[in-house]
C-alpha cells in the first residue's frame, strides 16, 4: 500500500483527527485518486476500527475518535469525490424515533456508516413518522435507519414501517433498526429488514441490505 495511504489508515485508527486532513491533502497532491483515498485510506481504516471494537480492544470512545478523524478527512475529500463522480455506498436517512430524545447511539451509527462510505442524512431525535416519510421521498434514500433507547418508543419503529407501506414506498426502502432494548426478534416481528446490536455491526447490516 502507498505510504501516504498507510499513514492515513493509522491516523484514522488512532483517532488523530488533527493530522488526517493534512494527510488527505498530501494524498491529493500526490495525485492519488479520491476513490482510492476513500476506499484504501479511510474505509479500510474504519473497518479495522469496527473489528477492534468487536474484539473488545476498542470501545465507544475509540470509535468516536476514529469516526471524527475520518469525518475531518471526508470534509477535504468530498468536493473531489463529487468532481470525479465517486458514488456513495448508499444513502441512509437516520433518526431517533418519535418520542425518543436520545441520540448517542444514532450518532455513532451515523458516523460508522459514513466511515464505510454511506451518505448520511441525520434527522435528529424525536422525529415524527410523517417527517421521516417526507425526507425519504425528498432524499430518494436507500435505507431508513431508526434508533430507540426506550421500550416505550420502540412501537414507533413499527409505525414507521406501516407508514412506508401506506405511502407505497416499502418496496424501495430498506429499514434497519437498533437501540438498547431492540432485538433481532423484535426486528422480525415488526417486519424490519435488518437489525444491528451496535454501531460496528450496523455497517455490515447496512451493506447486506443493498
Amino acid at each position, binding site marked *: 500500500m502507498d505510504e501516504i495511504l498507510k499513514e492515513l489508515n493509522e491516523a484514522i485508527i488512532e483517532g488523530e483527527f488533527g493530522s488526517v486532513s493534512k494527510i488527505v491533502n498530501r494524498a491529493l497532491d500526490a495525485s492519488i485518486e479520491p476513490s482510492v483515498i476513500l476506499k484504501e485510506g479511510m474505509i479500510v481504516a474504519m473497518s479495522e476500527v469496527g473489528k477492534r471494537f468487536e474484539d473488545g480492544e476498542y470501545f465507544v470512545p475509540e470509535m468516536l475518535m476514529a469516526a471524527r478523524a475520518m469525518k475531518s478527512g471526508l470534509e477535504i475529500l468530498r468536493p473531489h469525490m463529487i468532481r470525479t463522480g465517486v458514488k456513495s455506498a448508499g444513502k441512509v436517512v437516520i433518526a431517533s424515533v418519535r418520542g425518543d430524545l436520545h441520540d448517542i447511539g444514532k450518532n455513532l451509527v451515523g458516523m460508522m456508516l459514513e466511515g464505510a462510505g454511506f451518505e448520511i442524512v441525520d434527522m435528529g431525535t*424525536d422525529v*415524527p413518522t410523517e417527517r421521516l416519510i417526507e425526507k425519504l421521498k425528498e432524499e430518494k434514500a436507500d435505507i431508513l435507519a431508526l434508533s430507540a433507547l426506550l421500550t416505550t418508543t420502540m412501537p414507533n419503529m413499527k409505525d414507521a414501517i406501516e407508514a412506508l407501506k401506506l405511502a407505497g414506498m416499502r418496496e424501495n426502502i430498506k429499514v434497519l433498526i437498533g437501540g438498547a432494548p431492540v432485538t433481532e426478534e423484535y426486528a422480525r416481528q415488526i417486519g424490519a429488514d435488518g437489525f444491528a446490536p451496535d454501531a460496528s455491526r450496523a455497517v455490515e447490516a447496512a451493506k447486506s441490505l443493498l
Partner: protein
Amino acid sequence: MTITSRERFLKVINCEIPDRVPVTLFIADQGHFISQVYPKVDPQDFLTYQLKVIEIQKELGFDVFVRLLYNVNDPLSIHCGGLDVSQTTENWEPKTEVINDGKTTIYRSVIRTPKGNLEQDFSVNEMRPGTFVYACTKKPVKTEKDLDIVIEYEPRMPAWWPAQVKSRIQPVRDALGNDGILGTWTPHGPFNNASLLINLDELYTLYRVDYPFYEKLMNYAMERILDYTRAIDEAGVDVHCVGGNVPGGFLGKKNYDKYILPFEKKYIEFVQQNGTPAMYHNCGKIMALVESYKELGARIVEPFSPPPVLGDADLKKVKELVGDAYVILGGVDQITYLQNGTPEQVREVTRETVLTGKQGGRFILQSADFLEYGTPLENLEAFVQSGKEFGGY
C-alpha cells in the same frame, strides 16, 4: 422473631444476614407502571404518586423501596439536563420561549451573562398520557469559554431549598414507616452530571482530546450539586441513588478507571460522609466495571441488568468477583419476564436469580429497572412469592 421490612433492608446494607432476601420493585415515581395502576392521579401530583408507590408494593407484599426523583430534584434540570434557568441574578438572565411540537414541548432558553450568552433546549415529551420523558436536547456547553461562563455565573442552590426538600420528603417518610426504605436520586455522579451540560459524543472523547477542559468540567459538574446532595442527606433519607449509567461498560474498564473513577469516587465519598449509603446505578452493560466498582466505594451497586434486552450481567460471576465489597441490588428482567412473561416463567427466573444472589448475603432482589406500563399484577405476585419462598437464609 419477625423483623420489619426496614430492618431487613438495613441488615443487608450493613452486611448482616437477615431472615430472607429483601424483595422489592423499582417503580418510577411518575408515569409508566404507577400510572397504569392509578390512572386517575394527576401526572403532576408527584407526592400522591410517591405514596402510591408505597401503597402498591405493600398491597402486593413487597419490602418497599420508594425512590424519589420528582419534587426532590426541583428544578428538574439538575437531574434531567441543562443549566438552572429557574433563577435570575444580575449576571444570569435566562429568557425562555415555549415551543410546542406535537407531543413534545421545547423550553428554549437564552441566558445572558456579562461575558456572553448561553443557549439550551430542554424538551419534555409526553410519550403516553401521564408518562413524560425529559431531556436537555441542546446542551449549553460547547466550548471551554462557555464552561468558564457557567462556572462564574450559574446560580447556586437557593437558601430556601433545603427546607423545601425536607418538607417534600417528610410525608413520604411518614407514610413509609417501617415498611421499607426511602431513597432519593441525587443529581447524579459527576460524569452523568457533566453529560447534562455537554453533548455525549464530545464528553466521551474529551478526556483524550482536551484533558484540562475535561477536568474543569468534571470538577464543576461535581461542585454544582454538592449543596443539593447535602440538603437531601440532611432531609433524612436511607439511601442516595446516584446515577452512573452514562459512563457504562461500553467505555471500557481502562477508560473508566483512568478518567472517570477518580471523580465518581470523590463524589461517593462526599455522599456517604455522614453514613448514608450510596447506591450507584448503572443499567446496561456493567460486567466490564464490576471490579472497578470495588474501588468506587459505594455501599450498594445496582441493577445488574441481565441479557438479552437490558444488559450483560451474569449474576453468578458478579458474586464471585465482588465478594463482600458491596451489596448487589438486582436483577429480574422487567421487560422479558415481568411485563411480557407468564407467571410460571417469572416464578422460575426469580427462583434462579434469588438462589444465585443470596449466597453469602449482601443481596437485594429487585426488578432490573423501572417497571414498564403494561406489567401484569399477577406477574408481580409470582415475583414476590417466589422471591420470598426461595430467599430464606
